[in-house]
């Protein structure tokens, strides 16, 4: 759950934690529904859950993109000093 920074520290990453929670929540919800289903048809997933999962993934990717950008800017800044 930790992200590795250029200075070697490994703080807990909130964006990773929220994605893990959303993944586990979606998984549990779907598995429980599937176990209860006796119709022989695959159960669907509520649209609201898909939207939440999409948002969660977007936050994760945004966070990851920001980390990469920050590392790159730090690297450029240290080279110029």
């Amino acid at each position, binding site marked *: 759950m930790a992200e590795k920074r250029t200075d070697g520290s490994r703080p807990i990453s909130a964006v*990773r934690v929220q994605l893990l929670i959303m993944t586990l929540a979606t998984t549990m919800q779907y598995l429980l529904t*599937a176990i209860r289903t006796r119709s022989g048809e*695959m159960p669907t*997933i509520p649209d609201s859950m898909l939207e939440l999962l999409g948002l969660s993934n977007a936050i994760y990717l945004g966070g990851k993109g920001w980390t990469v950008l920050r590392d790159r800017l730090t690297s450029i800044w240290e080279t110029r000093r």
Partner: protein
Amino acid sequence: MTFKAFIDNSYDLLAFFSGVVLLFFAGGLAWTILWRMWTNKINLSLLVSEKTGEASMSRLQLLIFTFVIGLSLFVIVVGAAEGPRFPAAFPPEILTLLGISGSSYLVSKAIQSGSTATATRPRLTISSTTVGSLAPGASADFSLRLMNVPSGTAIPNVTWSLDAPSLGTITPISPDKARYQAPMPSEGPATVNLRAQATGFEDGTATISLS
């Protein structure tokens, strides 16, 4: 029996035997893969990791969803009230779920590969990154090099370890060298991942094959 009935019956028999052959082939393939995983011939230590050794959430998510959908399909097929049968339709929401997860994985990979900071980040490199088939009880020495650092940089405090399953032992013999000893008696052919870690550096890794 008419000719038409005979032909129809033959096709049923052919379909049945084709199904049996496919079942044994798929089962054999599955057991071979599981056996190779069990004996460490298929290395899964970096299955949910980035190239740098960091955990990858998008890989983990894709793996979980793939297994959950597969497991659910199995449960639905065998748990149907009127006997096992394949679902008539696959809900688009499930495809959307896998699409979100797959796209997230791809974008994550793109971000990771676009990171020049990763390429220029200080990292440890272990020499002789692959040892060809080490005999039981035999040892091999490994040394470290520092990459992407100014020349003359002192060797940092390095922690040597073995990724799970940690077969054998690793002992530091100098600040930049360590000795790996293979387990005795042998636990069968296996692959061991050696890892060197230091604060401020990307991990260095090496692969050792045990005979």
